[in-house]
């Protein structure tokens, strides 16, 4: 599905449709992502977030549409799956986890090299994890582990970093920290970041673009152009109110429109 390189864009998705087990999960989803952009992928459970990410990774074959990756055409993707649960007694330091991101798929014993160490250090520095780089992964807090896994995904210098619900299991302050961290990484390195979330407000201050998924369809664009009553109403197929309460966004279905796909973003 990967087409010709498109130098200006990190990712271009056109009319992507995906069916899983005979059920259409995504219908004609289109969006683009430029290098250095951070894009939020917002949608309720079951609205196709994970399927979209998995089809970008090539784990799921689309039934229609195209996915083009930018740059030199090599599929340099970083991915952080939802909820990586770690055995607390795993004999791996944070540093070792990051190193596995670099060459965990290679055969043979890991030979220490200056270059390898430098890249691991750089990835750890990028997520500000130097302080606990030599601690066992199982002893780190959820937020610290999430940083290490982001470094694990970053260390191979991807063009595009995909993260599935990276904030889901974090407390609000850690979530904000990680969101800000991702913002900084995308700005500093030019990596395009696509992260899914249930909750929009943590991402509002950091994201450049948003893809809003509902019922398998998507509305994509800058936040101000997508999170609007008219756009979301069209997406859901019935009236939706978008309220601004002291700087927090509330997506509320109109009374009586008790449809399956209605979705109220949680206000923390």
């Amino acid at each position: 599905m990967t087409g010709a390189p498109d130098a200006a864009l990190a990712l271009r998705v056109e009319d992507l449709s995906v069916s899983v087990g005979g059920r259409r999960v995504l219908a004609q989803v289109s969006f683009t992502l430029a290098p250095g952009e951070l894009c939020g992928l917002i949608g309720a459970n079951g609205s196709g977030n994970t399927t979209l990410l998995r089809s970008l990774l090539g784990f799921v074959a689309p039934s229609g549409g195209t996915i083009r990756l930018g740059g030199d055409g090599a599929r340099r993707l970083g991915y952080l799956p939802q909820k990586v649960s770690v055995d607390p007694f795993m004999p791996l330091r944070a540093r070792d986890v990051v190193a596995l991101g670099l060459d965990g798929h290679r055969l043979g014993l890991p030979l220490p090299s200056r270059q390898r160490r430098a890249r691991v250090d750089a990835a750890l520095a990028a997520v500000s994890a130097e302080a606990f780089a030599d601690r066992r992964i199982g002893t780190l807090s959820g937020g610290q582990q999430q940083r290490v896994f982001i470094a694990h995904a970053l260390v191979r210098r991807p063009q595009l970093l995909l993260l599935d619900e990276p904030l889901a299991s974090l407390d609000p302050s850690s979530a904000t920290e990680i969101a800000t961290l991702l913002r900084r990484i995308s700005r500093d390195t030019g990596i395009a970041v696509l992260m899914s979330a249930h909750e929009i407000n943590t991402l509002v201050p950091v994201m450049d673009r948003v893809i809003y998924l509902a019922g398998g369809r998507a509305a994509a664009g800058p936040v101000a152009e997508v999170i609007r009553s008219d756009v979301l109403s069209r997406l859901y197929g019935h009236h939706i109110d978008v309220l601004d309460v002291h700087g927090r966004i509330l997506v509320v279905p109109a009374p009586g429109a008790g449809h399956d796909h209605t979705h109220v973003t949680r206000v923390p």
Partner: protein
Amino acid sequence: MIAGIFASSWVAGSIVAVLAGVIGFFVVLRGSVFAAHALPLGAFPAVAAARLWGLDLLATVLAFSVLGAAVVAALSRRTRRDIATALWLVLMLGAGELILSRLQGYSRAVYGLFFGQLLGVTPADLHMIAGVGAVAVVLVLIAFRPLLLSGLSADLAAVAGVPAGLLDLVFLTLVALAAAAALPAVGALLAFSLMVGPASAARMVCDRPLPGLALSVALALATVWGALLLASATGWPVGFFVGVAGLGLYVAGRLAGRGYAPLRR
């Protein structure tokens, strides 16, 4: 004090210890303890079949162990792994009993598979143990990083393009190889003890994989040598000391791990 313990026993015990230490490290890391118990014991019908049809014992045991690894790997995609393993094990033990009942004459030698005779290792056994053991250790070291990564998280391994199904099969086959090599010396039951105890203590003490692996091997060697010395001093069988040392190492590991790794989270 050492008189009565033969050089071949020391060497065989040391090879099995290295093998168990290496394979056991990944058994513990990947949570494949049940498979490590079931695959060696699943060779029970192989021992009986080799006698019934006059087959080569090692070849038959290897074939059954590898078949077991393949079946468990395949079945665990359909059902839960522990259930697949349990069902495979009881089917094999039942089949072993069936084959045993077809044998004429005194055929209880097949039960020798359970406990092994470390002191009865012949030079021919030694070559076999060393050969199969070397293959298994080399394969583990080749697949070191993918095994580590998929042990950390199956999802992360999949993202890195590690073929999970294949790796799983390779790993279970390695466990089966290790078991086949260890059978004549320490038997199916104690090979397992040697895989679990040292590795579980090592991963608590070491934060890094390679030193952890080295410590696992060192503890396994210490277990075997200590067991041989104690057995020599007391006149009791080696297996008793191996089994008890395995539990001791596990408990020591748990106590060592309590300090810094939260059990409850």
